[in-house]
């Protein structure tokens, strides 16, 4: 039974989730560009961010603060905590390995998945939690077309943050420093760029954007220590985008979000989870550098 409104509705849902994928993918690309490390643990970092937010907002709720105050206080606190997490990871796990082959670093990020998931389960228990959403669930109707206001606002916020970060990346001095470091670490150091500072900065940016993605995602799904799996499927976004291209990530996120939604529309819910990986495999075989990626980066 063909139902155009249903199709449109699902397409919109797909594009909305694409916005959040872009925000997640941004962190992966940032770290990859600056440090040449593919961060498999980005999803786990995102999950941690969501838990930070949960903690701060629960504390504030227990004081009986009004809603706007909760967001106003716990968002900056979450970002600070996530930034700290990023700095710690960079300082203690990545910096000792600077200048080495990226494989051990990738293994470390894989180890980090286990560490963060285990830590989250120990601190916040593995039970599913429902943090206070930034935007409460509301469904608006345009004719018979239903639009989820929560997803719409999350989408808008994600895209705004994405655009701000990517404009800063192109325009600001720090952005230039990150891009310079990405091209050649030792030369960047010789230009007076604090390379480890740049590494820290890129981890901080990745963790902060990741935590925002986690905050937006957690109420849509539920918050468990395995929320990071979503981050793993964002690999497909990053690969399709081209691994080191920020614009590529944005385009790829919409494509993947939409294709996922269509797969679930036409074949059933369970196909949604597998679609990103099929796409990954196809891209890797057909066009390894993705839509907008640098061509020569096929070496580990």
């Amino acid at each position, binding site marked *: 039974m063909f139902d155009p409104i*249903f199709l449109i509705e699902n397409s919109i*849902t797909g594009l*909305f989730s694409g916005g959040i994928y872009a925000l997640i993918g941004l962190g992966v690309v940032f770290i990859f560009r600056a440090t040449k490390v593919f961060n498999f643990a980005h999803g786990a970092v995102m999950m941690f961010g969501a838990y930070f937010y949960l903690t701060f907002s629960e504390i504030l709720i227990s004081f009986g603060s009004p809603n706007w105050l909760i967001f106003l206080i716990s968002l900056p606190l979450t970002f600070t905590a996530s930034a700290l997490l990023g700095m710690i990871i960079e300082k203690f796990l990545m910096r000792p390995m600077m200048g080495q082959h990226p494989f051990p670093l990738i293994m470390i990020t894989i180890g980090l998945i286990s560490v963060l998931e285990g830590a989250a389960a120990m601190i916040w228990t593995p039970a599913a939690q429902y943090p206070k959403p930034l935007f409460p669930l509301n*469904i608006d109707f345009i004719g018979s077309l239903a639009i989820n206001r929560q997803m719409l606002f999350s989408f808008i916020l994600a895209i705004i943050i994405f655009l701000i970060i990517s404009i800063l990346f192109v325009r600001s001095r720090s952005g230039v420093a990150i891009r310079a470091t990405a091209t050649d670490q030792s030369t960047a150091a010789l230009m007076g760029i604090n390379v480890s500072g740049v590494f820290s900065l890129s981890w901080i940016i990745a963790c902060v954007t990741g935590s925002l993605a986690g905050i937006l995602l957690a109420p*849509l*799904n539920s918050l*468990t220590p395995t929320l990071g799996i979503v981050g793993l499927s964002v690999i497909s976004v990053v690969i399709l985008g081209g691994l080191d291209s920020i614009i590529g990530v944005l385009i790829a996120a919409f494509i993947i979000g939409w294709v996922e939604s269509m797969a679930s529309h036409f074949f059933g819910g369970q196909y949604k989870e597998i679609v990103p990986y099929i796409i990954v495999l196809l891209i890797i075989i057909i066009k390894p550098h993705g839509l907008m990626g640098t061509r020569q980066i096929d070496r580990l």
Partner: protein
Amino acid sequence: MKKKFNLNRRSFLKNSAALTGAFAFGVPSIIRAEPKSWVMASSFPLTGPFAAAGSMGLKDYLDWVEMTNSTGGIAGKKIKPVYDDSAYVPSKSLANFKKAMSADDKPVFYGGDSTGFMKLVTPELNRTPVLCGGTSFSSELADPKTHPYQFISGPTYNSMFDILLQHIKSKGGKKLAFIYSDTEFGKDPIEHGVSKAKSLGIDVVLKEITKPAGAEIMTHISSLRRADPEYAILHGYVTGVWPQIIGGARKAKMSTKFLGTFWGMEKIIADAVTKQSGPFLEGYAGVTPYRYFYEAKEAPSYGKFFAFLKSKYGDEFPGYVSTWSVQIMFTYEIAKLAIEKTVNADKEVNAKNLVESLEAIKNWDSGGYMGKPVSIENHAIAQGRVYSYKTSNGLFLPISDWITT
């Protein structure tokens, strides 16, 4: 002399095979003395997706054991609880099972914690038989031929669906949707449910698979809106997803009536959801085989346990025990009954005799756990009742009689 010690690979294999033949198969099983206590071992999902249910269940189970022991245990002997975390991973449960079974005092009963485990343990049970119950209501287990040592302490998921479908039929429902999780547990009764609905003349307009946790609600709401059923059965969830789907449907101004199955019928979850997001669960109904704990008036067993907890914890005891814990306790009650029957019949307490006693349970008064007298058929108890949630007082109240299938 020199040749004798020349152990190359081939002779190593040969020798080890010979040694195996000589010892491994030849050692007679040691005849053990009657145990001093009944070891009842089980796995609990203390971590993983169902951790909330698992840890709550464990606490209440231990209290139940303490209470039972304080009143003389089973047939004069105390219960010794042995438990391990499984993280809801079947192979971990299996390792726990093997560990328990290779201990010096073997358990008389093993409580498994997932359908996956019940499946994995089946071949193992043929080798080291032990009475085995658990949290799974998988329809496949209700077959004494293929699963001789396993039992279900309630209706199978198929029976639960039967009860729900009868309820819908009696209310005159015509269009029905199945929403279920992408797990073994979720998919279990769907096929049966579809054919049963057909035979009752109910039209299943939608079968929607979701993730067991963290499902993207909007997509599912969209499909639900398209199908626009009068009733929707949510199955295969414990703590998550089902409240969000109902919430989403209400926000989308749908009037579909939602029904759940046992694991999605917990008051604690419903209360928390109501507190957080408003009273949209009003009218949510579902089937459960056990009375809620606040119906203690009709259930003497609950009353006893309530008194025990009150005396142990004082004011800290909130006065409510979750249905998850009730399920675990009831499983143990049945095991307890089987052991008592076996001992009273003066038979050796082993898996085979326990199963015989179990199968002989007919018209047993469960002390209020269940409304009708309990008869075990095909290692399952096919009865249940439909309850409906009221947000004003936070109680699930019965809207049907006890139904047997």
